[in-house]
């Protein structure tokens, strides 16, 4: 049940956070502290994945379709990236 709920939750940037694409992944900026944070997500993630309309499941499907990466590998690696973002208050 918890797993299903996690999959159905959309990812959204925290209110004062902006994000942009870099060659190696995503660069986040939190305005309140003028701080930056990054994840080395390569070509997996786009800024649009955090606009509140993509669930984890959607993102996994999107990555697999675009990159050919195995779903199992994505399912293992991706939550670690998003958990870091949440822990650092880049995501709601």
């Amino acid at each position: 049940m918890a797993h299903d709920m996690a999959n159905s939750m959309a990812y959204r940037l925290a209110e004062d956070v902006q994000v942009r694409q870099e060659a190696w992944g995503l660069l986040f900026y939190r305005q309140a502290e003028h701080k930056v944070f990054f994840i080395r997500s390569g070509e997996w993630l786009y800024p649009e994945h955090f606009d509140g309309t993509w669930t984890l499941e959607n993102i996994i499907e999107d990555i697999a379709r675009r990159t050919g990466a195995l779903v199992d590998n994505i399912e293992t690696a991706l939550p670690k990236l998003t958990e870091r973002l949440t822990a650092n208050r880049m995501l709601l």
Partner: protein
Amino acid sequence: MKYADWPLSAPVNITWEITHQCNLHCIHCLSASSKASPGELTFEECKQTVDELARLKVFEINFGGGEPLLKEYFLPLLRYIHTKGIVTCVSTNGTVLTKEAVALFTGNRLVNIQVSLDGATAEVNDRIRGEGTFRNIISGIELLSRKNIPLSVNTVVTSQNFSQLNELKDLAKKYGARLRVSRFRPSGRARQSWDALRLNPAQLKEIAAWLESDLSILTGDSFFSISQDGRRKMGLDMCGACKLTCCIDPVGNVYPCAFLQDEPFYGGNLRENSFKKIWDSAPSFLRLRSLEPKACRACPRFESCRGGCPAVAYFLTKDLDAADPECLVNWIREVP
């Protein structure tokens, strides 16, 4: 490997000196400001630059000068920048605030204001910023205070005001502001006042300990070369010139940072080249991005600071391979 070693597609933030005009004549001014320079960028040229910075997703523009509020189109330019969602920080001397400016700043989530003050008393401040300035700056801070404006008081730490840092923190707090301290560097007019105003090794040790003990003090990347490890973990622990930031001057010249506005570091001019082209390919930027001062490479702390502030090393020695003379390793040997 620090992420900033990878080339970023654009800076995280820009320092933009919008004019050289200033109504004050501070003895340590990094821009040696006084009159506007001939050929300062027009409003249209500034908007074109903002358009490009927005396309590149630069997150923040930090305005200084001179005194930004003396630029006739400054407030309309801020409004334009805010339509692009770019965060702005305005560094002002606090003496020329208008009702219109305060109204624009009030409750604006894209504005941070930094007022420069170099002493907790008129006796100390006015020695640096000029006779009567303390009173006028405090009046400016009062106009901004408690109006839902993220406000900081910025002090360039010198031998003159070193003993008043805690008083300055209390003064800032009284007005609902935070204290931000900047490192005194021998750029601009400060080259003439360097010997008189620089901190001695014992003072450097004391300020390093003070910053370590009070993480509420803002520093930007100013003190990374003397920072103890606790503060380094807060980030901004290395020189960000050409990696995280760069500087645009009033006539559109682009430099690695505000403290490196000198011929050897000139990157290009926005009237001749796009900002992106300068950022990606200016020879001076490429050189600075790969800088590893020879004097520092064997140092056990090299991986922590990567050679300190090149501006201080360069303006004192004219040698980018020289160590930052105020780095923690250098002065710690001189202080018991």
